[in-house]
């Protein structure tokens, strides 16, 4: 008895927008290449329904100064390059990743508050040191973010960098800066479909084209609420595929930052023996967080550890069939 089997193929009516990060010389920037994210017309990697034009992209996070709150494992792995963002950026480029995320910290290494000028200088250094398209995140305080990102936008004019994070408190200024200097924004909301949609609407009302907006639905680490991020992203992606134009932005999330904040990644001593080897556990914490989010629709994941980059890259190459 042969059974005829009709496969279940969904025809989605909506498609995720493609967003291009970075600008080469021909496009008025200095990046060695551009990177396109998004463009899906189906759920992650389900290319039996529709070709997936771009794989999830990997960004690696660096900081404008050696961070004092990162896990000792990261400090040891990156080593001396952490003292100089240009060197750090070069080390990232060697990992053959798609994007670089530079975070501007609130305090410099002498304990003084970072100024807009210092932030500009760091961005300049990093742009000069690598050809990777750049994402710049401010320190995460509304006033300071505005001050710094506005200056950074001007410094990097024409480079089509991503300014982040852009939220419901700072969006007017950040979006204006992006529009004035040809950049993109990372629109962050708190794990909620309607909030994400609302912020996209506000941003496009100010006048920024939606092909310049990444949507950042916020995430949490494995063990600390990753399931909320997972479901928020899955719902956003389904809404996009079902044709809701205001949720059709590629999604950026920061599993590296979240995972490495957690005790499992940060602490090696006085932990239960069932937690196993510290470094392997820490890297798995980051890679499993990233994998989970990629399977719910992440288009850009920001990572911290080189071995995690290697593992996530290999997973993506096993899943993505080059747009066929």
């Amino acid at each position, binding site marked *: 008895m042969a059974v005829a089997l009709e496969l*279940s193929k969904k025809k989605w009516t909506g498609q995720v927008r493609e967003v291009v990060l970075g600008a080469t010389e021909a496009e008025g920037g200095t990046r060695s290449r551009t990177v396109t994210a998004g463009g899906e017309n189906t*759920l992650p990697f389900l290319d039996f329904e529709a070709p997936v034009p771009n794989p999830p992209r990997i960004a690696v996070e660096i900081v404008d100064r050696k961070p004092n709150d990162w896990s000792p494992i990261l400090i040891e792995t990156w080593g001396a390059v952490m003292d100089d963002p240009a060197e750090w950026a070069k080390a990232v480029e060697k990992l053959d990743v798609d994007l670089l995320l530079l975070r501007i910290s609130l305090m410099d290494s002498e304990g003084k508050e970072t100024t807009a000028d210092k932030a500009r200088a760091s961005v300049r250094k990093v742009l000069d040191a690598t050809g990777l398209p750049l994402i710049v995140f401010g320190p995460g305080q509304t006033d300071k973010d505005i001050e710094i990102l506005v200056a950074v936008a001007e410094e990097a004019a024409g480079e089509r960098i991503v300014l982040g994070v852009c939220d419901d408190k700072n969006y007017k200024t950040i979006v204006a800066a992006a529009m004035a200097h040809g950049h993109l924004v990372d629109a962050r909301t708190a794990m909620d479909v309607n909030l994400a949609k609302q912020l996209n609407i506000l941003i496009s009302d100010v006048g920024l084209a939606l092909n310049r907006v990444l949507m950042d639905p916020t995430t949490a680490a494995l063990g600390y609420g990753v399931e909320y991020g997972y479901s928020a992203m899955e719902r956003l992606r389904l809404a996009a595929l079902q044709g809701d134009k205001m949720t059709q932005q590629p999604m950026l999330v920061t599993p590296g930052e979240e995972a490495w904040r957690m005790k499992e990644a940060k602490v090696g001593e006085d932990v239960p023996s069932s937690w196993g080897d510290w470094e392997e556990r820490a890297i*798995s914490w980051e890679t499993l967080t990233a994998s989970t989010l990629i399977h719910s629709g992440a288009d850009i994941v920001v990572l911290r550890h080189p071995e995690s980059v290697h593992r996530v890259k290999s997973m993506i190459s096993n899943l993505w069939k080059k747009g066929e």
Partner: protein
Amino acid sequence: MALTGLEIYKLLPKTNCKDCGFPTCLAFAMKLAAKQAELAACPHVSDEAKAALESAAAPPIRLISFGDAEQRIQVGNETELYRHDKSFFHKPGLLVRVRDDQPLEEVERLVSEIDSYSVDYVGQTLSLDGIAVQSVSKDPATFAKYVGAVRGKTKRPLMLMTDDAEVMKAGLAEVAGTTPLVYAANSDNWEAMAALAKEHKAPLAVTADGLEPLVEVVGHVRGAGVEDIVIDPQARAFDDSLEVLTQIRRLALQAKPDRLLGYPVITFAGEGSEGAAEESMLAAQQIVKYAGLVVMDHFDPAVAYPLLALRQNIYTDPRQPVQVTPGIYEINAPGKDHQLLITTNFSITYFSVANEVESSGIPAWLLIADSEGLSVLTGWAAGKFDADKIATTVKTSGIADKIGHRKLVIPGAVSVLSGELEDELDGWEIMVGPREAVDIPNFMKLWKA
């Protein structure tokens, strides 16, 4: 898939005799569809109709269990494509595979290690679920020896793996009294395997390369009277596993074809990957995307813990945050001069904090506010852990009668609340603790009453 009232009506006698207590067969059918009546209320329904109705009411993915009453794996009964639509229900079983061509002592050591492995995660004890024993030797006596040795080291559920019915028989003889999973029936051996599964009342895995061959063998073993089935579509690699398991879940929920895919799926993460690191990534995908059982070829606590946490997270019910009971918690037997800390009743928050306080070895009072299961910052943003809530919790908890001082440590993440709190809590000193729970022990050492 559930039938509509009209579909059910077609199966009823249509005599409107009212014996069921409803005026017409149609009225009764409507109540059945709404699950407000039981089919047994109609004394006249034919056996054929009864069977059709019962099978239609059965869950789209059959619940399968193996092991014994104390330690068993129970998977299936899933009803959703997306967890946000309701929930995922039965966490996939995680098994580690051993083979009968490995040195016996090595197998015994590994099995003991896995058997005794457990990790504490937010108050729950998580462990791996079972062992798969595979015959590579193809020799009944050797397989029996290994199965017996494994059984000697663990009471966890076992899965026996061979395509040779004679070898399987030898293995099954070693596990009498418990129910293993029999792996596997294929297009050649299904008759013998189905007979063995029935004889031992054990669930049977069916394996075939691809969905069409698979449903064909499932049809055979079902025809032979086996009801408890696990399916293996032999989709090993990352891309195949994701596509095929997605297909199976979709088709199973539509009860297509003829419910032949309505069973938990078994995957072999080690076969679709190279090395332990890649295996962990593939197992993670399969946990998230529709596997019922995941068999791994490596065991490392540093990987088992994150996989178990992931499984726990994805299978929590999104309709209700996991909470602990609000109130006063005494940690390390505190007295009236020991410090007081406050946090929320979101279980992840509570355990992150309570574990640190406990491991500091320093006695302390932990006050848990009713934030309705929200974390510190989420609770604050939602008005469920703001200055008002904290002040009310302190005032109504009775903590003031238990301690001699008036100092309260709040989470570093809500340091901005301290001014407002000092206004609301007359006579109290508000101390801002660290942002992350990891730093609590060092902070607690600084305490002076």
